[in-house]
């Protein structure tokens, strides 16, 4: 399988990010039904169909090079987007090992890893990186191991430390988040970190999720999908830079909604780490504009119904309030009322 990278696309300023038809087709559309509500929708993160976003442990797609450049820009503006508390060094190496082994196994034409005892040789062809280092010795890498490998992997990452029957968000590389702040949330317990999410606590979702995650075993990762909406194909929708992207929410008109409004889906996966007993939480984001999604009318119909029945608390929390009516109006053109059987498939 070859990936046609689009190294020059941008996620700010000119916003030239677009999905290829193949990219749209593999978009992880998250709505099985016409209504949405929180649930503990976790399933084993096992190898999915070829070409799907579930095929590999860490999905690499056509946006890889451009996304990594956008991450570097964000980190240069704000190094605080990568935080790792001092006791997390073992978990950092666990993460580097897991990602390097996965990528070199799943994409041998793009990444190679050769080991000679503790001497490791890592080659990342798309980014032009060739690095020899000593596993376990941070001084042999240009930056700490967690930052090093997550500068080369699409998606945001949190490492959770497990102690006192709880999970603490003690490391993170967060440059493409749906409006939550690593600088603020670092060190929080699982419940505290998810504190601002409405309704889900009352449903017991986080309590059940935590119980389930505490028992997660090595080699048996799990995954779930989460979603929100974003104006413009912007990765950095952090609270820190809200003054920069907040005004975009007030810029949606009936004429630009197809281009500007994006469905943002997170493929979240959780991996137990072997030495530290920590847990790697990968948050792999996908963006598709309304125009792109509507190339499959089934998705446009489904999204129209999900948005029109979304509880107000969720619309508010996800920041959709200002542009939801315009988006619904636009989507309604596609919704002929056809009964849609359950399932997320595009056709």
């Amino acid at each position, binding site marked *: 399988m070859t990936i046609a990278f689009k190294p020059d696309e941008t996620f700010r300023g000119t916003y030239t990010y677009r999905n290829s038809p193949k990219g749209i087709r593999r978009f992880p559309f998250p709505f099985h039904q016409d209504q949405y509500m929180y649930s503990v929708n976790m399933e084993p993160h096992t190898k999915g169909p070829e070409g799907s976003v579930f095929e590999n442990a860490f999905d690499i797609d056509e946006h890889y090079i451009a996304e990594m450049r956008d991450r570097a820009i964000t980190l240069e503006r704000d190094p*605080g987007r990568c935080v790792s508390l001092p006791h997390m060094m073992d978990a950092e190496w666990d993460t580097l090992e897991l990602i390097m082994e996965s990528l070199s196994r799943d994409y041998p034409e793009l990444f190679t890893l050769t080991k000679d005892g503790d001497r490791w040789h890592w080659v990342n062809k798309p980014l032009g990186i060739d690095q020899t280092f000593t596993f376990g010795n941070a001084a042999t890498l240009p930056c700490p191991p967690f930052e090093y490998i997550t500068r080369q992997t699409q998606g945001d990452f949190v490492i959770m430390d497990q102690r*006192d029957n709880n999970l603490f968000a003690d490391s993170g590389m967060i440059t493409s988040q749906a409006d939550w*702040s690593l*600088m*603020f*949330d*670092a*060190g*929080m317990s699982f*419940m*505290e*970190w*998810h*504190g*601002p999410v409405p309704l889900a*606590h009352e449903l017991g979702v*986080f309590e059940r999720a935590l119980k389930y995650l505490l028992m997660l075993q090595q080699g048996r990762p799990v995954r779930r999908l989460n979603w929100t909406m974003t104006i413009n194909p912007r990765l950095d929708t952090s*609270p*820190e830079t*809200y*003054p920069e992207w*907040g*005004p975009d*929410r*007030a810029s949606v008109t009936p004429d630009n909604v197809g281009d500007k409004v994006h469905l943002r889906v997170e493929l979240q996966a959780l991996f137990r780490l072997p030495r530290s007993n920590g847990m790697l939480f990968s948050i792999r984001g996908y963006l598709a504009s309304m125009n792109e999604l509507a190339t499959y009318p089934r998705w446009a119909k489904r999204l129209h119904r999900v948005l029109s029945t979304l509880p107000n608390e969720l619309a508010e929390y996800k920041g959709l309030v*200002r542009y939801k009516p315009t988006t619904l109006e636009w989507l309604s053109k596609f919704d002929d009322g056809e009964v849609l059987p359950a399932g997320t498939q595009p056709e």
Partner: protein
Amino acid sequence: MSTPAIKSQPIYAELEWDRTGTHHILFVSAEDAALAQRLLSNPPGGTLTVVHLRPADDSRSAWSQNLPDTALYLETHTLAEALEVLRDAFYVAQMGTRIYLAGAEDAIWQASQLADTFGVSRDEIRHAQLGTKARPVFCVHCRTITRGVHTNIVSCSGCGRSLFVRDHFSRRLGAYMGFQIDAEVPGEVPAAEVVYP
């Protein structure tokens, strides 16, 4: 007891001694005569150190009376001084030490941050909110903490933005989150109301 709006907001239980401890460090920065009477009249076993932040006047404080004979009482007059004294107390603390922090959130969570630097775990430390409900507010844009905030909207002491004060609380930073309330439509700032007396 306070009812938190969201899960990160601290819940303060009635302060009680943790009698599984063999050494006790109590930091208090606000008056509560009933609590002082209740705690000090029935002290825990083992050593007790009281670090007291009190105004520099002559008023008698319930926290300085009825102390057990064995208690070490340390009086301080500024938060900075109290934190220094507390640091010394943590520095010499032994296994089995329990820590009690009682006062305004700004003070007790700064003390809590200090305890964190000594590797104190969450179950060895108890917090109680006394006195003002004023909030320390962390500006998520410029990272300045504005202290003593009584209103739901406040001008950031660092960048001047009008911040909405959320209920989302970080123990590590010892502050509530504030974000620019008029980011989407600049200038659209509602009137601030006193909600944290």
